[in-house]
């Protein structure tokens, strides 16, 4: 018979020549080398960006060069192995958590199926336990007695170029989202293992452009896009023009104003890229409605901290900028916009690195008098906490019907939910401004699925990979879209606003993405407004 038998079919499918990951593993994971091809890796950092960063005080980004992951020769320094092992030793001594994470995993597998990269690819090395094992195997080999004696039998292996390439592949297939850590009985945070892998790779000049360029821009001009102060101001002004056209309200925000009560910092993407722009319009309207004494800064013009995705020194430096600016302007406290990793850095690392910010006051809402004791040390309040408090105290006039074109759901951003515990405030706000429903329980709150493109993986050359890793999130959105006609995915993170937009374009094209404050802006009733029927809220084209 001409029709091939099932077995032959399966052979040609599974073992065909263009095979990538479609194989049932017949070898131990340690023996499967990584294979780089266009689409499965993010582009390496440009030489001049690395040179610039390396020239900056306190930062260390050596071995700037042109290179490609597809080449056999990555042009590593001659003594690269020594550098890596010394770097690992230094970090094991410095970070107690790393040492614990290396030692205490019992390989119970509870984390294995919790990672969106594993769920979207079926690649075992995307199981968090194996991701950590990539580093742990080297740790065992060089830093434990069992590994030194038993070698591979004890799960140890020597550091080789192949291992280094594997580190690069899989530390950039982890968005440091910490979902796995929620399920680990020992609290092992694989995100921090990934951070260490990336730090070590930077020591030999292996990093990606989508992270290092924004980090260097932030260091240079204060924001990811490298925008100069006048451009930043022009863009905010441009938004105020839009607001005037839509509502008849003229807002005149101030910039770098000394003596303002509050410094407002948000991701620069809110000021420059859709759909964040509408969230920024929401901020402007909100502050106008309550008459907040605040200022924008064109220097601390970025909430995001791409340092978090490189090494602790860069993270510390970029975080410090916000506080230096708060000090310079003499504000009382800082109000932070809808950002993800800004809050992660602030909540988890800032106090150890740059805190406590004693020169600021414990934040107190000038409108409601509420004292934000939770921010007693960092002196920085999240816009959702601030807004929820305003609503609770009846300080905002809201007309929910102005969002009648929207049926929303809410995506918990990994950073705000798992790294700072901000779960109920955005929900409380949504209750008051829009008709909305939750996604399934095992995809929200602490168990939320990442957008799939966090930690600097939101670059277009790996779009396929992002669509895979974003599948678990998109799948839950699809469910509420089909069941409840949800047409808007709201969130409180600027990276989410950009990445979820692409994710929806592929998986659920009828669902748009917005910030929670955009929905607040839509619903706000302002004194003196001459607002017509805005059938698409702040997005209405007049």
């Amino acid at each position, binding site marked *: 018979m001409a029709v091939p038998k*099932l077995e032959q*079919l*399966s052979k*040609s*499918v*599974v073992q*065909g020549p*263009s*095979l*990538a*990951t*479609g194989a*049932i*593993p017949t070898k131990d994971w340690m023996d499967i080398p990584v294979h780089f091809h266009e689409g*499965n890796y993010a582009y390496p950092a440009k030489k001049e960006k690395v040179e610039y960063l390396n020239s900056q005080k306190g930062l260390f980004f050596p071995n700037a060069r042109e290179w490609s992951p597809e080449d056999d020769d990555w042009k590593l320094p001659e003594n690269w192995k020594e550098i890596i092992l010394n770097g690992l030793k230094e970090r094991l001594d410095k970070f107690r958590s790393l040492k614990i994470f290396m030692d205490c995993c019992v390989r119970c597998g509870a984390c294995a*199926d919790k990672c969106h990269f*594993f*769920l979207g*690819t*079926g*690649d*075992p090395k995307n*199981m968090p336990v194996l991701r950590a094992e990539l580093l742990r195997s080297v740790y065992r080999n060089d830093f434990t007695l069992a590994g030194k004696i038993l070698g591979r039998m004890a799960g140890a292996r020597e550091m080789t170029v192949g291992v280094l390439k594997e580190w690069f592949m899989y530390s950039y297939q982890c968005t440091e989202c910490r979902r796995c850590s929620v399920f680990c009985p020992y609290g092992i945070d694989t995100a921090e293992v990934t951070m260490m892998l990336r730090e070590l790779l930077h020591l030999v000049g292996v990093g990606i*452009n*989508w992270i290092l*360029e*924004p980090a260097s*821009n932030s260091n240079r001009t204060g924001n*990811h*896009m490298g*925008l100069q102060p006048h*451009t930043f101001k022009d*863009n905010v002004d*441009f938004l105020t023009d839009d607001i005037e056209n839509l509502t008849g309200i003229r807002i005149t925000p101030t910039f770098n104003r000394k003596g303002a009560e509050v410094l407002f910092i948000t991701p620069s*993407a809110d000021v*420059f*890229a*859709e759909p964040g722009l509408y969230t920024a319009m929401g901020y402007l309207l909100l502050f106008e409605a309550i008459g907040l004494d605040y200022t924008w800064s064109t220097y601390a013009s970025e909430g995001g901290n791409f340092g978090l995705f490189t090494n602790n020194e860069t993270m510390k430096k970029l975080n410090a900028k916000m506080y230096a600016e708060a000090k310079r302007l003499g504000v009382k406290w800082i109000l932070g916009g809808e950002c993800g990793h800004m809050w992660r850095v602030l909540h988890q690392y800032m106090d150890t690195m740059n805190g406590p910010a004693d020169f600021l006051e414990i934040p107190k809402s000038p409108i409601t008098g509420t004292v934000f004791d939770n921010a007693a040390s960092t002196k920085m309040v999240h816009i959702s906490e601030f807004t929820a408090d305003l609503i609770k105290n009846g300080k905002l006039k809201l007309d929910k019907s102005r969002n009648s074109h929207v049926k929303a759901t809410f995506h918990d951003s990994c950073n705000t939910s798992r790294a700072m515990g901000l779960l109920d405030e955005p929900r409380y706000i949504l209750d008051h401004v829009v008709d909305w429903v939750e996604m*399934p329980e*095992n*995809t929200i709150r602490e168990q939320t699925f990442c957008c799939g493109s966090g930690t600097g993986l*939101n670059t*277009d050359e790996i*779009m*396929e990979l992002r*669509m*895979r890793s974003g*599948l*678990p999130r998109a*799948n839950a959105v699809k*469910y509420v879209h089909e069941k409840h006609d949800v047409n808007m995915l709201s969130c409180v993170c600027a990276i989410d606003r*950009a*990445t979820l937009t*692409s994710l929806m*374009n*592929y*998986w659920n*094209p*009828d669902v748009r993405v917005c910030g929670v404050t955009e929905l607040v802006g839509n619903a706000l009733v302002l004194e003196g407004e001459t607002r017509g029927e805005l059938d698409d809220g702040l997005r209405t*084209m007049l």
Partner: protein
Amino acid sequence: MDLAEAFRNYKAKIVDRWVDYTLSTYQSSSFFKKEGDVFANPVGGTIREALKKLFVLLSRGATTEEMIAPLEQIMKIRSIQEFSPSQAVAPLNAVKHITREILAADKERCHLVADLYDFEFAVDLAVLAAFDIYMQCRERLYQTRIREIKTGSHILTDSACPSASLKNKIVQESIPKVESI
């Protein structure tokens, strides 16, 4: 006993083996096969759901149009994973062989194998439609990428003058919306 009845009797068995075969194309597939919650296991859950629907359609010789929805569920996932086009589509074909094997192994029903022509023809149609959907998905992926570049997220790093791009908002708005397939 006629073929329709044999399909009904063996539906669960055939679908199970078909799902198992399809999910075996993933490197680490035991979780995909085991976990029943579609939110905890989107690949496994979706493929199981779609193949179940598809089998019912195939066994009653449904039209291609009717098969689009479940095929889309599967191809949308497989077209963005690391499969070659043939690898992405091939598991659909497997149901022919699985059905033959299962019927042939049943002494009372093995004569029905000779009647499988219509069923297998329906599978052929499904496979052809799946190729079209595969291409549409790839197309949509590229559209998504282009759209992201054009709508400004790319200026996170690469733009010389973002305010100019804002003034070009109208141009951005006119980028055609990626059609739902």
